[in-house]
């Protein structure tokens, strides 16, 4: 067992794009210490190094697909790709979608890799989470926490 990494990504200055970071901070408080939880705005190709050696990675990010705000999308990254419409590219460096595909090509995706996308509503600069997304966060955090706990039990 080489561990589980939970990583929340996003931009804290762009409304609902910060939801991945918010969820990661809540998960850090909620989960046992042995689970590494990362909230990062850093350049995304660096994630390949963050999850190096991990058995499991759960990536939490905001998505924009036209679904209801606060809806949780789950993608098993070892079985499918994240649809482009769900995860639009960043113009800076590598986007998260590119990073995931790069990791796949380089055979550097952990054995279990889950993408958890939280549908955002508003991505305007300088705004806080929209009410609908903020309201959905506690239940999503609980759902992800339970999933991580189940994985911990499986591996123990």
């Amino acid at each position: 067992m080489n561990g589980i990494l939970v990583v929340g990504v996003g931009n804290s200055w762009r409304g609902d794009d910060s939801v991945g970071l918010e969820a990661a901070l809540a998960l850090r408080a909620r989960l046992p210490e042995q689970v590494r939880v990362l909230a990062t705005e850093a350049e995304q190709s660096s994630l390949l190094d963050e999850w190096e050696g991990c058995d499991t990675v759960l990536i939490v990010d905001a998505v924009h697909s036209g679904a209801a705000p606060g809806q949780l999308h789950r993608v098993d990254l070892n079985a499918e790709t994240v649809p482009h419409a769900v995860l639009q590219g960043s113009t800076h460096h590598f986007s998260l979608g590119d990073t995931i595909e790069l990791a796949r090509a380089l055979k550097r995706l952990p054995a279990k890799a889950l993408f958890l996308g939280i549908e955002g509503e508003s991505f305007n600069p300088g705004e806080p989470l929209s009410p609908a997304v903020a309201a959905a966060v506690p239940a999503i955090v609980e759902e992800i926490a339970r999933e991580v706990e189940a994985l911990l039990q499986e591996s123990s």
Partner: protein
Amino acid sequence: MADETRTIKTDYLARVEGEGGMLIRLKGNEIEDVKLNIFEPPRFFEAFLRGRYFTEAPDITARICGICPVAYQMAACNSMEAICGVKVEGQIKQLRRLLYCGEWIESHALHIYMLHAPDFLGYPSAIEIAKDAPEVVETALRLKKVGNHIMTVVGGREIHPINVKVGGFYKAPSKAELEAMVPDLEWALETSLETVKWANTLDFPEFEMDYEFAALDAGGVYPIEGGERFVSNRGLNIPLDEFYEHVVEEHVEHANALQGHLKERGSYLTGPLARYALWYDLLSVEARAAAEGVGLPKVVKNPFKSIIVRAVELVEACVEALRIISEYEQPAESAFEVVPKAGKACGASEAPRGTLCHRYEIDDKGIILDATITPPTAQNQPQIEADLRGFVGQFMDLSNEELTLRCEQAIRNYDPCISCATHFLTLEIERT
């Protein structure tokens, strides 16, 4: 057909920073139109800066770009320090250069291997290269990481560093923190030398342009973190404060970015090809040996070979970073004191993709009254269009598909940063 109309068009350019497209219209053998369309929305940074305190400019302008934030921070600091009559020297100046080397390594590695190499190797993106030649992409990622690490150690974080201030740094790193980077930098230097050789094996179209090359004159060192004069191979040699007397910016209909050109002669080129041509003699022994080793001439006029020159600059950035670390002594003070003084001055630095010029005017309380920012991509736009005209004129016989690919590659020769270029727009409100 003599008057057959052909349109070479890319709606959305891949592997460039920001949002832009390209349109070329041919009628028979005549080029009717060549446009680099920049449709990324304008960003109004210069307007945001008015009314802010002078020390805020480095952090605000760093946000213009995630690839070259250090370029913005340095140009802003240089300009503010020039206004206030402070000259940053010694270890603090060297630390700035080290931070900037991190940005060059990170940006050049990204462009060489991930953005430009796919054009030469016939892949749509680096992800496809990774499937067939994972070692190429792993090399790029590791090089980028070395650059990012310098940015983190010196700048506080890898994107939009937070440790830079007017006058120097909030906290200068310890010698031990810098020395810990040496093994990685030694690997990066070896890899950069290999990168020069690898880049030289790529296929290049037989194509040259007669460029006016322009870059900063940094007074005896290869220009990176600043320079006092702006010079060219055609006799331009001006103090930085005269930049806007010679560089004219124009708004064209097809771009949300101003196009910069020299009042006297028109388009010019800024970036690796220009720095290399103007300052070859100031490169380190290692960088010059790398260039000579692959038979690269002292002046490169084939823009497609910019990938080799970028690799030579990668060598230079590694050599410089290692030199600065070996000579470093942590300064007692991390910054020079800068007291605001009413005035106006230009400050510039050499972003990975070319000269970036800022000009600010502040009052005696340090409030910014006016700001003008001229990024390298805005300056290179007319030259990119000139290259496209030249290239299409010479290679008109290629199929539309091949010509489109080659023209996109010709744009990527410049490593354009469209997001940087689009913070100008003259907004006219008509009221009736």
